[in-house]
């Protein structure tokens, strides 16, 4: 039984098929990268898996259980956590309040995680006062507070400066060592995703085009063609 699988997933926006019978399966926990040219359907796939968008056809299963069309809050309760491409935190809540909102982890864990990303001194500061990169880190730390089984990160590196990027990379690796869960990371920053992921999935035109180790994917002629059009 696989941890997460989608079958025949289709989603159309007008005449455009963001997902066109997408098939994807993750048997084991791991750090997986999800890449593909713009419009490949990566974010739509995330939105369907996390209940933000309903698919036109196809199914989503978590631990073999059919969770297709479940609302976002039910999926969250069943262990699916995500971050957003546009970076979402509660601006008026302090960093600590952000982490403790609907958390399964205790406050001590929140403080430890804040320490790991050097935000401890901002614990009592409203999230609105952080820089964009710091807010991004806070958002990602927040996803761990729910003690998820499946974690989807949508472009965690976007807009984060190189110094924080290094911190973020170290943090995600460390979290994976501490609790091996299913990480699925959408990313345009190839360096980042190749350094992070053990396995990379390439999407193109709403389907999975290629799947393999970072080296295999980088060497694939089909992937190169998809990117260069």
């Amino acid at each position: 039984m696989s941890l997460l699988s989608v079958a025949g997933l289709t989603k159309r926006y007008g005449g455009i098929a963001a997902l066109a019978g997408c098939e994807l399966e993750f048997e084991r926990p791991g750090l997986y990268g999800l890449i593909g040219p713009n419009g490949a359907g990566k974010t739509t796939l995330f939105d369907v898996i996390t209940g933000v968008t309903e698919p036109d056809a196809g199914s989503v299963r978590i631990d073999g259980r059919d969770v297709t069309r479940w609302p976002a809050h039910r999926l969250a309760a069943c262990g699916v956590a995500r971050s957003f491409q546009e970076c979402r935190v509660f601006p008026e809540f302090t960093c600590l309040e952000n982490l403790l909102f609907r958390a399964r982890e205790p406050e001590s864990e929140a403080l430890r995680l804040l320490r790991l990303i050097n935000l401890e001194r901002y614990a009592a500061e409203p999230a609105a006062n952080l820089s964009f990169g710091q807010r991004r880190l806070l958002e990602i730390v927040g996803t761990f507070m729910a003690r998820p089984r499946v974690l989807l990160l949508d472009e965690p590196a976007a807009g984060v400066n190189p110094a924080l990027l290094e911190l973020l990379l170290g943090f995600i690796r460390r979290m994976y060592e501490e609790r091996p869960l299913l990480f699925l990371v959408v990313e345009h920053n190839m360096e980042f995703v190749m350094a992070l992921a053990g396995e990379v999935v390439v999407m193109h035109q709403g389907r999975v085009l290629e799947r393999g180790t970072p080296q295999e994917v980088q060497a694939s002629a089909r992937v190169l063609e998809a990117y260069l059009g």
Partner: protein
Amino acid sequence: MAGRAALAGLVALLLAVPALTAQHPYVLHVLILSCVYAIPAVGLNLMLGYTGLVSLGHMAFAGVGAYTAAVLMVDARLGFWLALPLGVLAAAAAGAAVGAICLRFRTHFFMIVTLAFGLMLYSVMNNWDEVTRGAAGFPGIPRPAPLGGWSFGPLPAFYYLALGGALLAFTVQWLVVRSPFGRVLLALRQDERLARAKGVNAMLHKTAVFALGSALAGLGGVLHVSFLRVAAPASFTLAESINAVLIVIIGGAGSLAGPALGALLFVGLPEYLRVAAEWRLVAFGVLLVLITLFAPQGLAGLLGRAWRRLRA
């Protein structure tokens, strides 16, 4: 600590008002009306200020509570003390039912749908002659029956009733805001998509706050018509709903004291200035512009800043 002492002092002062103003019953009249306006405003503050739901039909639910109590008291010969909670319950039920529909919409679409439901409920009050007595109003609503030898006919007694209602509303607001439910409301106002991704059933929580806000509107409505001894559709029009929004925003949306300050100003200012009620909207329009520009946290925000400066 200083804040708690100030609050206790304020409550003591409010309790002493009838003794202090025995020569000027007019003051009590203004304060009773302020309470009656503040109670629905507390309900709207929970929705608008804390959850970000701008309803333009809020006072219609005050009307649901008021007319339910009126029918129960006059036609069914029920006592005030039974009709009051039933009126509140009816307003809450109407709020839950209407909320479940309106909350399928967001932002300005939500506002338009609440406005439409407000107008519909108003039309029912205005036209269902057999039950609501129509546009002429529903006369003969009694003041509350004496409770333990304490009659609510005289002005000071009714003042204590209205004040008790207002204190109850503000206590409910305080309890909600510091509860986990209140945290969820605040989260929904800031970012609903994120709250949902964190496991919040947004629809359920928003419907609950809509019902609670409507229940408080109903409480205010029942006290209002019992005070005036007549229920009139004119008390529950679109204009009154917009007034409630003004009271909340000018008082300070999302602040505990905001509805009290807003209602006091709304009722007291025109009385104090001795201008006709028609000028009230003009004055409040200007005030709204000034508040939006210079004090986005409303009067409560201004007072809070002054208080902190005083203590520093």
